[in-house]
């Protein structure tokens, strides 16, 4: 009980610590976006085709884009602190609603990718390290090197050509078979089916990363004194690998997984684009080119929070794996 209170306090403290970072991200991006030429009104007017300067001025006033920058920022920050992300200029919807709509697919893709990349990476790294310099090790190392070096979009396009068009195993794109409108378990199955190719594509790069890290980490740990101690106790090699070395070797992998989350969300833009996955990355991309300031800031805010949250989870996992780290 005392422990869980401690952990809760830790979580709260960490969130509080993250607050300045998240706000700083918002502020930095706010100014960066204002450095960009043109604004949301230019885009909307360009799309509508025939807006007069008067109409555009009216729109700017409506969006609050006519106010001086510091005032705009102050208003935005005030709203954010009261959990109001504002209104998307372009979608004419509250940003929170838009962003939350796209959050679930992002989370789905992210979690499945991390699970696959970390899980399989650990397994492959382990196999490679255990069979050091055997054909298994070489095969896995070559696989990791090649996948690490292949551009994501290329993999994605090739996956579609091979697995969707030629073999017909998986759908080309999207998150659901929209012609069908499945419900219940059918829908879960359908989404899982659509998830396969994007997940594999996105995870390949990270899979390679974790495989290499895990292998190196296993090898490093295998040289540690406690392994010698375990051998001196007569413990089997199997147990040395799976009980002694594995848990220690996992630590850097877990740390890396936490560091990579930010990159992962960003890297998903390409995958989302190729597979028409309705995630935050694509939304951010669109928002940027529509100069949909509120929306973009909202996305940055949410993804920053997401990264913070994942890092928190990683830290807690880490503290579970490593008793030396105390969560307090």
């Amino acid at each position, binding site marked *: 009980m005392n422990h869980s209170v401690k952990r809760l306090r830790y979580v709260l403290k960490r969130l509080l610590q993250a607050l300045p970072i998240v706000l700083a*991200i918002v502020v930095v991006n706010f100014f960066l976006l204002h450095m960009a030429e043109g604004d949301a009104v230019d885009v909307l007017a360009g799309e509508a085709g025939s807006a007069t300067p008067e109409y555009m001025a009216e729109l700017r006033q409506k969006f609050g884009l006519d106010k001086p920058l510091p005032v705009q920022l102050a208003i935005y920050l005030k709203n954010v602190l009261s959990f109001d992300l504002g209104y998307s200029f372009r979608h004419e919807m509250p940003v929170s609603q838009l962003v939350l709509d796209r959050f679930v697919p992002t989370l789905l893709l992210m979690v499945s990718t991390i699970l696959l990349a970390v899980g399989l990476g650990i397994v492959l790294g382990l196999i490679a390290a255990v069979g050091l310099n055997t054909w298994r090790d070489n095969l896995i190392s070559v696989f990791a090197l090649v996948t690490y070096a292949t551009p994501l979009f290329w993999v994605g396009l090739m996956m579609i050509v091979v697995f969707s068009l030629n073999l017909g195993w998986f759908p080309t794109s999207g998150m659901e078979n929209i012609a069908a409108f499945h419900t219940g378990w059918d829908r879960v199955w359908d989404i899982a089916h659509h998830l396969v190719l994007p997940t594999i594509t996105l995870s390949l790069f990270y899979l390679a990363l974790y495989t290499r890290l895990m292998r190196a980490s296993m090898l490093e740990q295998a040289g540690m004194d406690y392994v010698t101690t375990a051998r001196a106790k007569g413990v089997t090699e199997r147990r040395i690998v799976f009980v002694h070395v594995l848990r220690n070797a996992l630590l850097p992998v877990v740390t890396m997984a936490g560091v990579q989350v930010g*990159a992962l969300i960003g890297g998903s833009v390409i995958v989302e684009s190729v597979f028409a996955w309705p995630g935050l990355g694509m939304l951010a991309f669109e928002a940027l080119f529509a100069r949909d300031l509120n929306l973009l800031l909202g996305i940055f805010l949410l993804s920053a929070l997401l990264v913070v949250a994942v890092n928190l989870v990683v830290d807690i996992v880490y503290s579970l794996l490593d008793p030396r780290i105390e969560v307090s």
Partner: protein
Amino acid sequence: MTRENLAHFWRLYRRNYSAVAGLAILAAIIALAATAHFFFPDDPFKLAGRPMSPPATGGFLLGSDSLGRDVAAGIAHGAKTSLLIGLVATLVAVGFGALMGGLAGYYGGWIDDLLMRTTEMFQTIPSFVFAILLVAIMKPSIESIVIAIAVVSWPAVARLVRGEFLSLRNREFVQACHTLGMSDLRIMLGEILPNCLSPIIVTGSLMVATAILIESGLSFLGLGDPNIMSWGFLIGAGRTVLRSAWWVCTFPGLAILITVLAINLVGEGFNDALNPRLRERR
């Protein structure tokens, strides 16, 4: 480094055969980039013949693209750009990251706090989206791409260098310098920095590879410099005809793959040669 050091380094390096192979490939790519003007004297954007000629036809070794440009020439000339972008972006990122990490690690305290929060901030922003944002704001050009890649890459270096500085600043040889009355700047540059060059070189070499990948990703999304031939450009231009003219996209893709692979192998070789603790493993 002295000659004997180099010789020593090379002795260690060449024990890793795949690293030697990587170095050979990389050398070949650099040679290709350097001799591009010799073998392909024309502007790589030049419309050299029949559009979408398959490889080994119409005088095109690797085929031509939808406008009849020579893919081989594009790859040769693009090698220069891609390597340059990778290298310059990495240098900028390493330079800035080392500065931030060095200051944070050396001084500690509130400087460390401030700089590391800043670093954390940059790591919290989804990096590729941020790179897109920067390129879009600065308008697509080779400079803005380099800057964007550097901006999203430096935090990793900063963390690494900070860690190294943290551990080195308490080493006795650094303290000895303090007792000699050496200035902070000289200690940082003359004493500590040379001792964390190995991990920086290793990380840096891998970052070159990542930078090339990021550049190709940006080009894929249409954010490349339209005036400069790069592999990312070729892929971006070729992806629309991917299904009808596979070679336009495939060869530059392979070029990226091979280059990144080679750089990785070289990086690993550096790691093995520079990091004596891991040396015995191979």
